[in-house]
């Protein structure tokens, strides 16, 4: 079946360092979405990328969608303690009416 692989599984950084998580799909995606789950909370939608090669920014967060629409990345510049949580990518496979989630990257930060 369709799979979305996400790496790394865990990342620990010092506050102020950058962080990147990568997502790779076995099939071409209609779009890719990113979610953040704070410890003890539920996933919250961050952004959706639709176009091949698309890059979007939200303050210190930069999201990219690959040219082949099979991979994506989330980069956080100068992490802050508020960035702690698990970041999930989710692939939308055309016509499937459902998302396939990656395993998530759990980010912890040393203040």
């Amino acid at each position, binding site marked *: 079946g369709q799979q979305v692989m*996400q790496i790394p599984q865990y990342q620990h950084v010092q506050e102020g360092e950058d962080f990147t998580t990568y997502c790779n799909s076995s099939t071409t995606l209609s*779009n890719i*979405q990113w*979610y953040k789950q704070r410890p003890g*909370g*539920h*996933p*919250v*939608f961050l952004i*959706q990328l639709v176009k091949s090669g698309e890059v979007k920014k939200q303050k210190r967060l930069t999201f990219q969608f690959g040219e082949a629409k099979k991979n994506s990345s989330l980069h956080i510049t100068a992490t802050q303690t508020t960035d702690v949580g698990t970041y*999930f990518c*989710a692939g*939308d496979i055309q016509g499937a*009416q*459902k*998302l*396939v*989630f*990656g*395993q*998530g990257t*759990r980010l912890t930060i040393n203040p």
Partner: protein
Amino acid sequence: SQTIHQWPATLVQPVGSPLSLECTVEGTSNPNLYWYRQAAGRGLQLLFYSVGIGQISSEVPQNLSASRPQDRQFILSSKKLLLSDSGFYLCAWSPGTGSTEAFFGQGTRLTVV
């Protein structure tokens, strides 16, 4: 605005007991509805999804079932819980009509003892 309600927040149930988790959505009509399970420290596993009343798709064979008796109501059930059913259960909705952006409920933390 749209809101999603999921209850209870936490639940401790003995092995072999039945389960019923309910999820309702307000402020939208004909949403797609989803049940996910998240094991401790793990990713999101899609259990069931529904694109309309009475329409349920099962993703993983298991001890659980789902029903959608009304447009904005989604219920997750089990007749007899297993220890392996423990986890964090999340209900979500999306607008449908080609949009899959998901909005999650607060989740139910189920512990089977």
